[in-house]
């Protein structure tokens, strides 16, 4: 099988993710998928903006009092940094340094887990305060928007972890290089969405 050949850093192609026809298709297809995801998240943002602070008459929760900016700020930093570490991983993927790539991906996963932990903490806090999923239209749209992002984080973490485990013995080849590349694209996209969540939900929420 040609795509299973062993490479050296010298024979490893410049764009291993696009070196095979399958890889090329995967990269194109994944970008199109991200285009669809953009619209999907836009729908959630639009609905959130329409239903922000809306609830049953006399609702005591407003975004101004509810959100904790410092926590969201820390979460942003974690996710941004994890985006950088996955860039490092791709840098080593392109120079055929499998060990370094796996190491940077592990750090990415750890940072992602940190983000996820903080998000779960934040959600449970809100629920304790009485701001549950079905408390109001505001709460439903908030949890759906931020929760959908959270689900993406979980999927991304599972994906990257599985990739690392599956290929830990095998090393890099042209069959799994596109998979790593796509997982990293997905992780960046999660960060892109979070930048908007941080700005639109948290920063604009507390004003």
């Amino acid at each position: 099988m040609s795509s299973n050949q062993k490479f050296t850093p010298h024979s490893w192609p410049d764009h291993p993710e696009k070196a095979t026809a399958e890889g090329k298709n995967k990269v194109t297809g994944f970008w199109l998928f991200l285009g669809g995801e953009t619209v999907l998240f836009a729908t959630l943002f639009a609905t959130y903006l329409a239903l922000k602070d809306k609830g049953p008459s006399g609702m005591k929760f407003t975004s101004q009092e509810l959100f904790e900016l410092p926590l969201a700020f820390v979460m942003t930093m974690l996710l941004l940094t994890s985006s950088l570490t996955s860039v490092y991983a791709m840098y080593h993927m392109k120079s055929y340094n499998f060990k370094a790539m796996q190491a940077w991906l592990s750090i990415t996963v750890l940072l992602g887990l940190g983000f996820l932990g903080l998000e779960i903490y934040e959600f449970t806090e809100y629920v304790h305060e009485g701001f549950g999923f079905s408390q109001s239209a505001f709460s439903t749209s908030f949890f759906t928007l931020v929760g959908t992002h959270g689900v993406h984080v979980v999927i991304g973490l599972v994906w990257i972890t599985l990739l690392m485990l599956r290929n830990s013995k095998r090393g890099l080849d042209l069959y799994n290089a596109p998979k790593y590349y796509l997982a990293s694209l997905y992780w960046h996209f999660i960060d892109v969405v979070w930048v908007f969540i941080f700005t639109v939900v948290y920063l604009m929420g507390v004003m």
Partner: protein
Amino acid sequence: MSSVATKKKGLGAHIWDYITTVDHKKIAHLYLVAGTLFFVIGGIEAMLIRIQLAKPDNDFLSAGLFNEVMTMHGTTMIFLAAMPLVFAFMNAIVPLQIGARDVAFPFLNSLGFWLFLFGGVFLNLSWFFTGAPDAGWTSYASLSLMSPGHGIDFYALGLQISGAGTLISGINFLVTIINMRAPGMTYMRMPLFTWTAFVASALILFAFPPLTIGLFFMIFDRMFSGNFFVHTMGGNTIIWEHLFWIFGHPEVYILILPAFGIFSEIFATFSRKRLFGYPSMVFATILIGFLGFMVWAHHMFTVGLGPTANAIFSVATMAIAVPTGMKIFNWLMTMWGGSIKITTPMLYALGFIPSFVAGGVTGIMQASAPLDYQLHDSYFIVAHFHYVIVGGVVLALFAGAHYYWPIMFNQMLNETLGKITFVFFFVGFHLTFFLQHFLGLMGMPRRVAVFKAGQGLDLFNFISTIGAFLMAIGVIILVINVIITAIKGVPAGRDPWEDGRTLEWAIPQPIPFYNFKQTPLIRGLDPYWIEKMDGNKEGMLYAEPLSDIHMPNNSFIPVVMSFGFFVAAFGAMFHQETSWGLYVLIGGLAITALGMIYRSVKDDHGYYIKKEDLLDDKGGKH
């Protein structure tokens, strides 16, 4: 699978082959069969509606049952009949037209089909539980949230599953057309059917996510105590209307653009002329796709969005008439001076032009917001959208069935029966829907189960019902035609219409499962025509020497993954009233997740057809 030689297979092996297939030609057959099945179900529902409305004060259907039948008719026809039938032709034709051995992601192609099928079956199972959905195919939230029983749950969950399949297939076709074109097949040499499939797939990519989210909102509100549309909790039902139409308007272009593509091929073939104004056709297709996203609120003029919004959406809607008009004139100019051959597909194409123009003109009438206040929710609307959907999409599907039957099955449908089908269907169609314009203008509202006698509505409604029966006769003749053709089993051979222009007609019949022994080299628009004119008996030039061909393996995982969602949907629906619902939901999702993980972790490199086997292979039977 590794040998190309003909093997005798039992029925069971054939069925297993179809269940696990990743071959785009077989998936096209699956789409065709499933789509036809749902088309017949939706057609029976249509007949029930027309029987109920044949005379005033009729009690053939109860009001509640009428609502269910009417809702399921619309939902079935759009999502489970028209979409898969369009996909059947896209699957069968697009890879052959661009010189590809398969689609970009054969596995996902299969997954898309099975998701659609399980979603469609799930939706139709509603008849056997607490009743079918009954809030109209648009399922407006204020009404659908109040609907008792599980009907709307079936609607939301079923469409969610089949919609996921559609999105996957859309991405697949986009990548196929972007990456898998044969050498020389530039964008501006692509046949128009491929172009329309491309733009329709792009519309799917951007239109289905809003539907997905809208359906999730509906699922959350109905089954997981969300508050998106619950006004006492601060929700807003207008959100559903927006989301539905942000999806729903592009959806009609997703259907009509491939229909335009099929007719473009037919006009050029049977006028024996190059398609007139090819670049402007491409441009018009893209423009329609683009404008399709900017007009959704014209379905909501009477909601009260205000004069500014109504004016903007009104103007944008009217603008769509420009590219559509370009297309109509291009088709007419293609025929002008051509050596026209009136075959069954051409007959449909000729019938399509006046029918679709009529539907388009009434569309422009409704685009005018003040007039729409009068027409809204009347039978005028029903007449309009049946003129564009039946007069456009269904005529194209029938035309495409006759035209592409030899490509898909290596057999020719009977021309005489085909023409009889056309006459019955075409006359019946106009009889059914033309008078409905006037019923609407007289004030008959849509979606009513009964009308009173003595309001001047009796005669037109009765004639409309007669028309519906004529359409049904037409469809039955088509089915008979298919059966007779299958029994006779006369091979059609290559280029049976004798005027094929595009690459798919150049392939020897029956088409081998790898499509092309050698990747073809494309020298211009209508490549087969060019080779014919140059006296090239082979029909194509080759871009590569004969070598091993890489093929994907069949897989059962798509069925497993789709089945997981199917199970999960039942769990979601019953989780509030039963103790087991939640576990079924989690279990179903786990089945899907395991299927996905198995697919990711287990390497599947496909297999190679050896060069020597290709040399031995004369016809490509498999």
